[in-house]
């Protein structure tokens, strides 16, 4: 853990539920998710497509697209509830207290305004600075994120920057009002591999310097392994495992996490076959009873088909799996195999 655990948490998410009403019934996309983020900590939220990680991030920033909505639970930032704030109040929180970085730098920046103008606008919205002071701050930020020739580039338009440079500008934009928390949703996925490393290093360094906590949402375990202090693994709208990153990556306690880590090809011993988890993540309309992962789990037992496990202690991490409960999983049940 990078920070002392007796600090009050910066962000507390308790029993969060995100629903999508459709004409065929209500879909539960995030189901009873709880976690905390300590000040200055980097929490990775990792999962495959459909696991609900982006929706969790959006719910925290307050940018859920209707008809999706927060249907239960609470989100507290520095002790204050933010999930039920009216629009105007949330607008002040967003930007000043929580910053956001999204995947596509091209659509995150307004193509019609210069980069400097967008920075200054955001700064002045949240901080009581004069135009000149705001511009100076913008300039300093651009230099901090590594834009060469910031004095002239501050007046350039987004299309005049390359992909990696644009993402740096987006990071500057997210940091400019001095937020305590940044929610970054797949910040490097759209970038080339060599640029990814640069951006990750930048994000990590800046957040450490400013003392900003980061909620890093991604499907890329490699990014998490290098950047996060703790990681939460999501599956079918729930958290399957959460713990210090080293422990989760190297000594996974949940069968899904184990399977996931096994299927990621990495350098080291060369295998012909990668470990695979048969089957696929269930659709929101077909989430199985009991533990959502049970149809694909080689270690499942009778209890897994009936009772849904909550997060329980498993060494230094917590995992939602009956294997770590004194009662065990019950009689073993053969898994159903069906490839994705």
């Amino acid at each position, binding site marked *: 853990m990078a920070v002392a655990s007796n600090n009050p948490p910066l962000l507390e998410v308790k029993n969060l539920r995100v629903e999508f009403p459709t004409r065929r019934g209500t879909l539960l996309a995030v189901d009873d998710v709880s976690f905390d983020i300590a000040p200055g900590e980097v929490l990775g939220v990792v999962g*495959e*497509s459909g696991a609900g990680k982006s929706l969790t991030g959006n719910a925290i920033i307050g940018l859920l697209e209707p008809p999706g909505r927060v249907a239960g639970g609470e989100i507290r930032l520095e002790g204050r509830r933010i999930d039920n704030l009216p629009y105007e109040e949330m607008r002040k929180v967003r930007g000043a207290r929580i910053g956001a970085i999204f995947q596509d730098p091209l659509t995150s920046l307004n193509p019609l305004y210069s980069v400097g103008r967008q920075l200054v606008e955001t700064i002045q919205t949240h901080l009581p600075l004069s135009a000149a002071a705001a511009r100076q701050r913008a300039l300093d930020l651009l230099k901090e994120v590594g834009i060469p020739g910031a004095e002239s580039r501050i007046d350039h338009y987004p299309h005049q920057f*390359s*992909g*990696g*440079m644009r993402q740096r500008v987006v990071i500057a934009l997210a940091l400019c009002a001095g937020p305590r928390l940044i929610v970054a949703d797949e910040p490097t996925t759209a970038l*080339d*591999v*060599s*640029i*990814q*490393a*640069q951006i*990750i*290093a930048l994000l990590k360094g800046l957040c450490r310097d400013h003392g900003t906590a980061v909620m890093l949402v991604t*499907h*890329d*375990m*490699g*990014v998490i*392994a*290098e950047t996060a202090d703790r990681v939460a693994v999501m599956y079918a709208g729930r958290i399957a495992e959460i713990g210090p990153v*080293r422990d989760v*990556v*190297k000594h996974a306690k949940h069968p899904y996490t184990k*399977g*996931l*880590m*096994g*299927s*990621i*090809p*990495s*350098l*080291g*011993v*060369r*295998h*012909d*076959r*990668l*470990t*695979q*988890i*048969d089957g*696929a*993540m269930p659709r929101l309309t077909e989430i199985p009873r009991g533990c959502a992962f049970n149809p694909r789990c080689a270690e499942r037992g009778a209890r897994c088909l009936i009772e849904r496990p909550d997060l329980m202690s498993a060494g230094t991490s917590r995992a939602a799996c009956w294997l770590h409960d004194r009662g065990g999983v019950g009689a073993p049940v053969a898994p159903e195999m069906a*490839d*994705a």
Partner: protein
Amino acid sequence: MPDGSAGQFVRLAGLKRYFDVSAPWLVRTLEGRPRQIVQAVDGIDIEIAKGETFSLVGESGCGKSTVARLVVGLYPPTAGSILFDGNDMAQRRSQSETAALRRRMQMIFQDPYASLNPRWRVFDIIAEPIRAFDLAKNKADLEKRVGDLLRQVRLTPADGRKYPHEFSGGQRQRISIARALASEPEFLVCDEPTSALDVSVQAQILNLMVDLQRRLQLTYLFISHNLAVVYHISTRVGVMYLGRLVEVAPTDTLFRRPKHPYTRMLLDTIPDLEMTGRQRAPVAGEVPSPINPPSGCSFHPRCPFANERCKAERPRALPIEGGTVACHAIEEGRLAVDERSYDAGR
């Protein structure tokens, strides 16, 4: 260069493909703009032996996807030749001869959502090559073939009645693979077949492809930007940068003793899942635009070992340790090749 005794199954020699992206004639004349040519593929030499998996890696814009399309004939080459089992693909042939050659090579695409016609049933999608090449004797034979193909990719014959949108990304890629195998090809060009898939699905598809290769004695040209994937399934690897091949080597050699500075840089960017604490060394700069590539060796602006010659002269591919490398620094002995190891502890 491996000695030609393996009998190259597929050989690309001096392959080039340029795209004219100039503004329309009227605009150019009125504004005095010059023609703009993108040298997407600028002289590639590759040899693939039968039964091996040759992977082509590089970042976006390096031209690897263009190479894939050149090989299967979607683009005509601007220069150079493609030899398939000794046959020059550019040579004029009769319809039936061309068809016979085309039948033996097929392609798998990256995007599982765009590679299947959304209005066709899966049965028809897979049956199309069989029908086009006239491989089935009658309707019953056709149905049997399609059923077998679906089973081979671990779907069921009943899936043939469904439409693509009823399947997940991984399942669609399986359908794509089944379609590619329908004409009983010997050579498959795979353009980033798993890049759009989740990690656990990627593992299933890669395992499937390796199994199929063994069972059907296929040869693969595998295009990817993911070095870790390439590490596991390739026999030999070629690294591309801005349309040129900077290094070719057997897989183990490339990963343990990388030579070209760009190869080393790419290997450094592979994330450290072993948690050895290996720092990724971020490299300066970004890939330049292919419209105006740097002079001489196109990597020189980002290369820590560049000298004056690198700025002026394009390096030639030198044979070395079972592969080739195009680098002045290596040639001149300025750059030592060291051994890398990756902690295998997990």
